[in-house]
């Protein structure tokens, strides 16, 4: 199938190096210590952060650092075919682990011993790149919760179809069977915290695709910073009134 037309447009009308529109909102869950909604095109996820709080399961308590937990789930109505998936299937267990490890790399866990931080992410609408959207939402929620972090973690995916590197794959492109690279970086520190790829790519092409993904991550980071600053400004304004 043709994923990039001769005019250089993708199926949804984007250019190969174009991202979908992103939108973020802070404070979606009032009960949580921090929360956010993150949208990348038609992918929409909600994240809630609780903590740092006392460890629920004492046997998991650590004396030198905080325990970070993450739970990923997909709403039944998030995909086109309404499927009843058992909670804790292999896919969601894997993504939970990936998100947890990615976020743990950025959180200054040694500042909060004897405590735990819970991150809950749920996919409300799935259209490819849920992993990236979840990580971005989790970053926003953690920053909203005021949990100390080394840097924001941002994530973006990139792929390679019709011998063209494509940024931010949607569901159709994701299921095309080409390579799909999900990258998570600490943008200011220039460090990679997550790199996943399914299928294979020659190393020189991987470099191009990864560079594209890095650009995507940095664009997301700029947007997230804007949102955070805007949110802080508004909170200050409200406090001042």
């Amino acid at each position, binding site marked *: 199938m043709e994923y990039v037309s001769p005019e250089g447009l993708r199926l949804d009308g984007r250019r190969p190096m174009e991202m979908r529109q992103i939108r973020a909102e802070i404070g979606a869950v009032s009960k949580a210590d921090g929360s956010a909604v993150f949208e990348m095109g038609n992918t929409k996820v909600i994240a809630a952060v609780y903590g740092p709080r006392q460890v629920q399961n*004492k046997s998991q308590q650590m004396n030198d650092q905080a325990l970070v937990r993450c739970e990923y789930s997909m709403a039944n109505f998030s995909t086109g075919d309404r499927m009843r998936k058992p909670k804790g299937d292999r896919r969601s267990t894997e993504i939970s682990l990936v998100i947890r490890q990615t976020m743990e790399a950025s959180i200054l866990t040694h500042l909060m011993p004897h405590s735990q931080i819970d991150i809950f992410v749920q996919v409300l609408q799935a259209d490819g790149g849920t992993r990236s959207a979840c990580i971005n939402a989790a970053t926003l929620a953690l*920053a909203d*919760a*005021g949990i*100390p972090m080394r840097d924001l973690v941002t994530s973006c995916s990139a792929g390679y179809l019709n011998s063209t590197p494509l940024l931010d794959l949607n569901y159709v492109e994701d299921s095309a069977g080409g390579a799909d690279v999900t990258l998570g970086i600490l943008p*200011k*520190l220039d460090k990679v915290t997550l790199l996943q790829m399914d299928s294979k790519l020659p190393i020189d092409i991987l470099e191009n695709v990864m560079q594209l993904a890095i650009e995507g991550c940095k664009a997301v980071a700029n947007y997230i910073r804007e949102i955070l600053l805007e949110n*802080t400004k508004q909170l200050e304004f409200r406090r001042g009134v």
Partner: protein
Amino acid sequence: MEEEKEPAMVTPGEVLGTVSEFKPGKGTYVAPHNDTVFASLTGYRRNISPAIDSSDQRPIVEVTGHKAHGPVPQPGSIVIARVTKVMARSASAHIVCVGTKSVREIFNGIIRQQDVRATEIDKVDMHLSFRPGDIVRALVVSLGDARAYFLSTAKNELGVVSAESTAGATMVPVSWTEMQCPLTGQIEQRKVAKMAS
């Protein structure tokens, strides 16, 4: 250097300066490899000039976040706790206030027999010192074991500050070991806190 009037807003990961310029304060951290100070919170950045007599003349840079975390009991802090269970050698309690601030989640505390009062500590009868439901002012002695903070009431101003009698009325302190019910006149035993008049 930043103007004090217009504090800059920062997000996690932003560079604030180097260790030679600034002393890292709250909401910041130092990367171990390049001696750079980064922000770890979202909020306003502030430079605080050092104390005049301190040997370190670098200004302290800190980032104040907008979310205030609930207070956490620390050794030495005075807490208000509600007694939940009284046993022969100890009483357990839920800490509800640290200093003047109420906590946002429950912390468990335990008052051991030897920490109830300062004198004759081996003759203490826990059941004649506390009852479940009593409001107690106590001192945090240590972080305790994994389950609970160790609390102490071994001072005049520490102990039961408010208690309900079996008749259901709030009792009036009579002496440092007794409280009286205003309805029935019944006297109950407590380790009463001496209130500042």
